[in-house]
Each structure stands twice: as structure tokens, then as C-alpha cells.
């Protein structure tokens, strides 16, 4: 039998009555899930899953943040499976690609996940070859219920509600899980148009959890606000740290500033991890925390997955009313390369900090030799947080890829692998990292990685489009917006509305351009590469009307 209590990372299980999760639906009060209840739910899923027929075995989870979706994640860990929490914005093509890449025999899905499958079940044969575990069959909204009914005609569907419940949370016989086996697979954007699976070992998950608990000084007295999706490593680590120390994790679906402030007040939140877009929205709305009255428990916040402008960094302390601000920098392939402590926030405002415990950071020239302090180069990460490799890569490092043999391997840095991040920057004389940009065209939209050329390829594949290019354009609030310049085959069609609708069915919302601008031609270089500079300049000057 499976010992889920051991997953808590400590010898003593948490008190059964302590709150593990809290969550509220719009218009309803917070619902609490105790550690006892969560562990029972996880055991129920584990009983249903049983031992995998073969390994590696993947469990994709296509669901919103809930006690049941988290129970699936825990059950995967307990039964030696690799969990893959899918980005909630994924559409059917990305979901099908994940099912294909993982050969997952079973996928967990809820009402939210069903909406992404709607209308697409017969377009992707893989979906019929997968068994589905439906988490909330009893409370589906009508459109999701319709999709569930259709799914039942296409593939075997198990209802979690019908599975036998159990009060038996056994402590006997911990299953031996190979610490070097992949415990998690997080999908991220590559430049090729297909999601890439980043494999993370059980040992590394435990180590990064322990390091974060230490870094933020977490204990069972903390209450962490989960705004970010669990498909994102920062969001996932919030969950794992909370479960390990026995803290409460508040599951929030909203990014709206008022909802964030209200949840923080109602649950006495102590820590918040957020991406720049969340802080930018908050500043835009004029909202702020109040640690003297409504938010007395708030200790710290993070800026993760990107940076704010200097002006925004100067405003943030007031917005969070003096709470500690940590910056963190990393990527899915290398969880956390650096972090900036609150004490350094003002003094090293332009920096993303110093190497995270367990990590080595190098800045290198194109030939992988080290740059001198102040010299710009590519940021390289070794140590804690390094992925095992990409799914499907066969475990072999590719010298042209992000993960390569560590050029600096030695007694000081025994890590066999290094992640070449593709970020450019320099280390200053004090050893603090300053980032300057990307070696490639990758953008961050609402915290998600986007390669504009992927979006361009999708637009070019649509009927009636003669030529197109999609670029990221900075907005006044500091966020990047995708703008598509289109040359239609015939004047007046397709309309922007038609193009948007077609893309919405194929791409996560953050990859659908914010604006569509119809032009007569896309300037190209002598080698045929799109040269959008004049288009963007004209657009920015407001001379082109979409």
C-alpha cells in the first residue's frame, strides 16, 4: 500500500485537522480541505491508479487547481508516476501533443479541462486511445457536461466520485521511488511549435522544496497564496513547500487585484509568489496592500519569471506596504538560478540577485569560456533545479540545445549537466547577476514563454492569409503584447474577428495576438526574413489602425 504521509517529507505526518488548502468559488465562502481529507483523497486516487503497468508512467492532469487535482498529483508521486500538470490555457492541439509525447494511458480531467477538449475530440485520435479520470462529474456546468457525455462515447471514462472512498491512510511499507526517476514533467514552449516536456527528478523536487523552505523561512504558521498555475515551476514549488511544512495553500483562480487583496485578507496570507504581469495589473488599478489593518500577516512577496521596469520597482514597496520583496530568476529547465534578498532590493535594484543555494551561475562567451565581471555573455546554470532532460530526448544531452555537459565540472561544481539559458547578462564585481535580454526571440506574455515565430506560423497556416508576421510590442504598463501584421489574399477577408476565433481554437490565449493589423505587404530582407521594424514603428506611432 502507498504511504502518502511520507510525501510530506518528514517523519511526522501533519495533524489531520490542520488546513492544507482553501479555495472559494465566485459568490461562495472559502472551503477548507484538511491534511487528513487531502491525504484520503490522494489515497483514493492512488487505489484507483494502482501500480503502473510499466515505467516510466505519466499522469497528465488537465484540471484547475483543486483538492482533487492536487490529490491526483500526490497519488502520482506515491505510485511512482510522473505527473504533468498541464497549463490551464492549453487548447486541444497542445493537449493532444502531450498525450502523444507521454503515451499516458490515463489523463485526469475536470470541468475546466473538458472545455478545452470541446469540439476537438474527434480531431485527435490520441484522445480516444486514452482513459480519462473525471474529477467532478457531479457538478459540471452544461457545456462541460455535454463534452463529458461526448467523451464517454469516444473513450473510457472513470468517475472519481464513483471510486470507493477510503479512510485507510496507511503508514506501512513506503514504496521505493528511484530519486533519479522523473517525478514531474512540466511542459514549456520551445521554438518548434510543440510543447516540450521538462523532466524533473524526485530528488531535485525534494531539494528545491527544502531550499525554498529555507530561503523564505517557511513553517506551518505560513499561509501561501497560490495565484500561479501548478503547471509553472514556481507555482508547483509553492504547493510542495506548503505541503512539506504543513502550511495552508490558498488556491486562487483570479488575477484581479481586488480578489488578490480580499483572499490575502480573508485567509491571513503570509507569502505571495507572483509574476510581473500581476504586479503591473495591481499598479494599474491603484490597489495596494495594507499591513497595518487588512493584511497584518503579509511577510513577503516575490517577483518571479520576469522583471519590472525601474519605475515599477520603485513603486512596488509602497504597493506591498513594506512587505519583504524577493526577486527570483530561473526557468523551467533550471528552476531557480538566482534570487535577490529583500535587504538588497534597493541597493541592487537592477539585479536578479546572487546564485540560489545549491546553484552555480556562470556568464560565458559563445565559446563557453567565462566572461570577466561586467562583461556580457550567456547565463549558464548548474546544480540544484537542473532538469533531467527533455521528454523524448533519450537522456542524451544535445550540444546545440539548452542542456549540455557541464563545461565547468570539477570539485567545486560536480554537476554533470549545465543549462545554457539563452539569457544574456553580466555578473557585477560583487557577484550579482544583471540580465540584459535574450539570445533568441523568446518573449514572456503574462508570465508564459512565447516564441513569436510559432504564432506567425499558425497565422500563415490560416486560409486567406497571403503573408504575416507576429511581433511583441511593449505596452505602456511594461507588459508585452503580440501584434500580428497580416496581408490578406483578398481585401476585406478574413476579418480580424475571424482570424482571432480560429487562433483561439488552436492556441493558448496568451499566444493569440492582442491586435491584428492589415497591411499591403510585409517588408523582407534579401534572405527572405520578415523585417517588421517599419511596420512596428508605424504601428507604435498610431498611424496604422487595426
Amino acid at each position: 500500500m502507498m504511504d502518502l504521509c511520507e510525501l510530506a517529507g518528514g517523519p511526522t505526518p501533519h495533524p489531520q485537522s490542520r488546513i492544507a488548502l482553501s479555495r472559494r468559488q465566485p459568490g461562495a465562502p472559502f472551503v477548507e480541505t484538511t491534511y487528513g481529507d487531502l491525504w484520503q483523497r490522494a489515497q483514493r486516487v492512488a487505489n484507483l491508479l494502482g501500480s503502473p503497468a510499466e515505467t516510466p508512467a505519466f499522469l497528465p492532469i488537465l484540471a484547475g487547481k483543486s483538492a482533487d487535482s492536487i490529490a491526483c498529483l500526490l497519488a502520482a508521486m506515491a505510485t511512482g508516476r510522473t505527473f504533468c500538470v498541464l497549463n490551464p490555457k492549453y487548447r486541444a492541439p497542445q493537449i493532444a501533443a502531450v498525450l502523444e509525447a507521454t503515451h499516458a494511458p490515463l489523463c485526469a480531467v475536470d470541468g475546466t479541462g473538458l472545455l478545452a477538449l470541446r469540439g476537438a475530440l474527434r480531431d485527435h485520435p490520441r484522445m480516444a486511445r486514452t482513459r480519462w479520470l473525471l474529477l467532478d462529474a457531479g457538478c459540471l456546468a452544461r457545456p462541460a457536461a455535454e463534452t463529458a457525455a461526448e467523451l464517454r462515447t469516444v473513450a473510457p471514462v472513470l468517475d472519481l466520485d464513483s471510486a470507493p472512498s477510503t479512510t485507510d491512510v496507511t503508514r506501512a511499507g513506503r514504496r521505493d521511488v528511484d530519486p533519479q526517476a522523473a517525478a514531474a514533467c512540466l511542459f514549456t514552449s520551445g521554438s518548434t511549435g510543440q510543447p516540450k516536456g521538462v523532466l524533473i527528478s524526485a530528488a531535485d523536487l525534494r531539494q528545491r522544496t527544502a531550499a525554498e523552505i529555507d530561503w523564505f523561512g517557511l513553517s506551518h504558521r505560513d499561509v501561501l497564496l497560490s495565484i500561479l498555475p501548478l503547471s509553472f515551476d514556481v507555482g508547483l514549488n509553492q504547493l510542495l513547500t506548503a505541503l512539506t511544512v504543513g502550511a495552508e495553500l490558498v488556491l486562487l483562480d483570479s488575477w484581479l487585484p481586488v480578489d488578490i487583496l480580499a483572499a490575502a485578507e480573508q485567509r491571513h496570507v503570509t507569502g505571495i509568489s507572483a509574476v510581473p504581469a500581476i504586479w503591473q495589473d495591481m499598479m494599474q488599478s491603484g490597489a495596494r496592500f495594507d499591513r497595518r489593518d487588512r493584511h497584518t500577516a503579509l511577510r513577503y512577496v516575490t517577483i518571479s519569471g520576469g522583471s519590472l521596469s525601474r519605475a515599477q520597482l520603485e513603486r512596488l514597496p509602497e504597493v506591498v506596504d513594506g512587505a519583504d520583496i524577493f526577486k527570483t530568476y530561473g526557468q523551467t529547465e533550471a528552476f531557480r538560478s538566482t534570487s535577490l534578498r529583500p535587504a538588497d532590493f534597493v541597493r541592487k535594484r537592477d539585479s536578479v540577485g546572487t546564485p540560489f543555494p545549491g546553484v552555480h551561475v556562470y556568464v560565458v562567451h559563445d565559446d563557453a569560456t567565462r566572461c570577466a565581471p561586467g562583461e556580457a555573455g550567456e547565463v549558464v546554470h548548474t546544480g540544484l533545479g537542473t532538469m533531467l532532460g527533455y521528454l523524448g530526448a533519450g537522456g542524451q544531452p544535445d550540444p546545440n540545445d539548452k542542456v549540455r555537459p557541464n563545461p565547468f565540472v570539477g570539485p567545486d561544481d560536480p554537476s554533470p549537466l549545465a543549462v545554457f539559458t539563452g539569457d544574456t547578462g553580466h555578473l557585477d564585481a560583487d557577484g550579482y547577476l544583471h540580465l540584459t535580454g535574450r539570445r533568441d526571440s523568446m518573449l514572456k506574455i503574462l508570465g508564459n514563454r512565447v516564441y513569436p515565430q510559432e504564432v506567425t506560423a499558425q497565422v500563415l497556416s490560416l486560409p486567406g492569409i497571403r503573408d504575416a508576421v507576429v511581433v511583441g510590442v511593449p505596452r505602456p504598463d511594461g507588459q508585452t503584447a503580440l501584434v500580428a501584421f497580416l496581408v490578406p489574399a483578398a481585401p476585406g477577408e478574413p476579418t480580424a474577428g475571424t482570424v482571432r476565433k480560429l487562433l483561439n481554437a488552436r492556441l493558448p490565449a496568451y499566444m493569440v495576438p492582442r491586435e491584428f493589423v492589415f497591411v499591403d505587404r510585409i517588408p523582407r530582407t534579401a534572405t527572405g526574413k520578415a523585417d517588421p521594424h517599419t511596420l512596428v514603428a508605424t504601428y507604435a506611432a498610431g498611424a496604422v489602425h487595426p
Partner: protein
Amino acid sequence: MTLDTHALMQFLENNLGVDTTAIDRDTPLFSAGIIDSAGMVDLIVFVESTAGVTFTPDDITLDNLDSLGRILDFVAAQHPG
């Protein structure tokens, strides 16, 4: 123009490219990822100008916005009687 479910569905379909066969009056919009924060802004502007109501900053919550039904209830509450 009166703001009703039909008008909202039309806006979502035509302006935000949402497949409205996939939603009904109660479908969570934001929390299910059907519209994102950018779409939310456009939706608020549409509701304000069509229904002649104003969202104060404190009104911008999922309680008021996360489904067509919630939006219509909010609008109705701004016009008592």
C-alpha cells in the same frame, strides 16, 4: 442598447473570438481561461458603455464578472427598481 445574455455572447464571439457554443449563463469565464485579463478589460468597457453602469475599482472581482449571469446580476444591482 439593453445588455442581455445575447448581447454579451455576441460581444464575446465577435470581439474576443470566443466560441460561445462552449459557454452558457453560468460558465466561469476567467477562472476557466476562456478570457484573460486583456479580454476582461474589453468586456468591462463594453458592459459599461452598453448598460450605462460604472465599475469602481472595488467592483472588479470574479464575483461580479466571472460569468454572464454574474455580470447581468451586477448590472441589475446598479439599477434598483
